[in-house]
């Protein structure tokens, strides 16, 4: 019994630390997407909704270099973190949404976003997440999280966002 409480307590503390430390990346919540209605599956259901939200909140975006789809050490660290969270929530599936910044042409960005999502999913699979829980969708540069036209916005927009579902 005590060990179970300990694990639960550790988890809560872990979540709290992530949220409080300020090092957590900006998480794109479904309601924070600039153009509602474009986003993927809207999760529903009263039972697991809260758990899904907790998992969603704790997943980190994976960021990429300009024109790139290889995983930087930071991206690998974020994916490792995400893999640990997903291991603790085996009932949760994720869609890896690949995004690009606006400094590209739209169709090539679709391919680039597809590749970014795929490289993220491959990492998660290697880290032990069952492939049947993982899928990808590329949005190219159609859904920037930050619509500004500067380095900061571009860096935020070159991302893979893991969206949870059941």
């Amino acid at each position, binding site marked *: 019994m005590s060990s179970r409480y300990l694990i639960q307590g550790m988890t809560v503390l872990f979540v709290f630390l992530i949220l409080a430390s300020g090092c957590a990346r900006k998480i794109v919540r479904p309601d924070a997407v600039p*153009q509602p209605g474009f986003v993927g599956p809207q999760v529903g259901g009263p039972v697991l909704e809260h758990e899904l939200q907790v998992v969603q909140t704790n997943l980190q975006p994976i960021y990429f270099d300009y024109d790139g789809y290889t995983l930087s050490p930071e991206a690998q660290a974020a994916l490792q973190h995400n893999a640990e969270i997903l291991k603790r929530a085996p009932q949760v599936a994720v869609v890896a949404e690949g995004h690009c910044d606006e400094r590209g042409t739209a169709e090539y960005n679709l391919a680039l976003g597809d590749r970014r999502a795929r490289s993220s999913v491959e990492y998660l699979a290697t880290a032990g997440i069952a492939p049947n829980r993982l899928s990808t969708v590329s949005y190219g540069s159609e859904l920037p999280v930050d619509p500004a036209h500067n380095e900061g916005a571009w860096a935020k927009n070159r991302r893979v966002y893991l969206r949870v579902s059941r």
Partner: protein
Amino acid sequence: MKHNVAEGNHRGKLPRDLTGKILPSPDRVTAKGDGKVRFTPFRVQVSKLAPVPRAPACAPKKWADIPRPAGSALTEVPMLRVGKRIRISTLSFLLCFLSFLSIAFPSHVHCKLLLDLENPNMAKMPIAVPDFVPQGAGALNGRELARIIRNDLYLTGLFDIVESSPPNPQNPADPPDFDAWSQTGAQALILGRFQVRGDEWVLEAMLYDVALKKLELGKRFSGRINDHRIMIHKFGDRVMEKLTNIPGCFTTQIAFVSDGQSREIFTMDFDGHNLRQLTQTGSINLSPEWSPDGRGIIFTSYLNRKPDLWALDFASLRPYVISARPGLNASGRYSSDGKNIALSMSFNGTPNIFIITPQGNIIKRLTSGRGNDISPTWSPDGSAVAYVSDQAGTPQIYIMPVNGGEARRLTLQGNYNTDPKWSPRGDFLAFTARIEGRFQICTIKPDGKDLRVLTKTGSNRDPTWSPDGRMIAFQSDRDGKKLIYVMDARGETQVPVSPVTGKAPAWSRTGR
């Protein structure tokens, strides 16, 4: 060559009014069972046309030297397919103006007005299009009407529009004062006069060779006022045919994706008018492409929350799925015969180019490299597909023969070349290149030679060719907003046309 003709009073008799009394009767319009209005050619009999006294004697030798099918100016059958209740009657008749007195000016001795489009140093033709002349009151404005065809001709990049204009003749039925027009520098002259009757109108439009003082083309149109733009575009197509030997494409349309809060597909006339929203899905829609017969479009849509290839028939306006395999089903492009669609699909792991039927069945896998392959474009003869691949580290354009063979890299300069579009004439590919951090529209020959950068300001992307291969539409942000622009294939005239922000323009291959 001198013609000592006595006096210029053998001027061709133009149709004097809009009642059609001295005009050949209009083409017969027959309504077939499907409700479409069709046009049967009016059988032209030269003898029925306005009598031209001593016409053969007046034919200038240069003009006569030019081989033409007999009566070609008379028997043109209008290529009307869509316009409702538009009647065109050929009122052109080979009126030879006998007044070649001013032959004293050597510049007046010249060949038929014709733009040599194959000549890279071709000079633009000065053309005057004064305001159309109303005959009676009505809802249409002669200045606006003339502006339609003036803009059509300007956008081709082949003409200099002459702004100055001598006063109209006292009697509108009189032929123009060619000497006065000649002094404005105009080589060609388009005159129009029109009459409004209720919700219909009648237009008579004429194209003159100013130096030869000769009517090259005369058309009489009648139709609904609501169709007035397309009627004038149709005359513009004929003017282009007269002056370049190739009909214009002023009745074609451009589809594009809205670039604001939504990603819906719109269509507009090539000059930006007649904007219509085609999709209202609330999802992301991308990469529209017209079917070669003009009956519908295909596009990439996230209607099912992932990028699938969809089609939309204009008849039913109901979208349906063509390909919804896992991963990408993107950038679908019809072959020119409409029997195949090339697209990029990633169900195998990486985005590769496939060829499928319009029903979505895979015919063959065209590329199998480990790079991302996207944005296919067919050669006009269907023998090859150009596409983008980053197999060498950066996105570059490759050409792959469809029936076996190795891919050949087309672009060797720069580190970002995307969006290839093969010209319908086959002579060039347009594409988007990243140059000094911005995107520019370029053209290159299929053998990799003759690379030209056509745009210089702002970022410019998504080129698409007009069906005659003479113009390119693209997206530019040069003036702050992302608008669809149209330019000639040499990039000399670049004009924003879309009334709203947009991207991914696709030029239709058929006229309205």
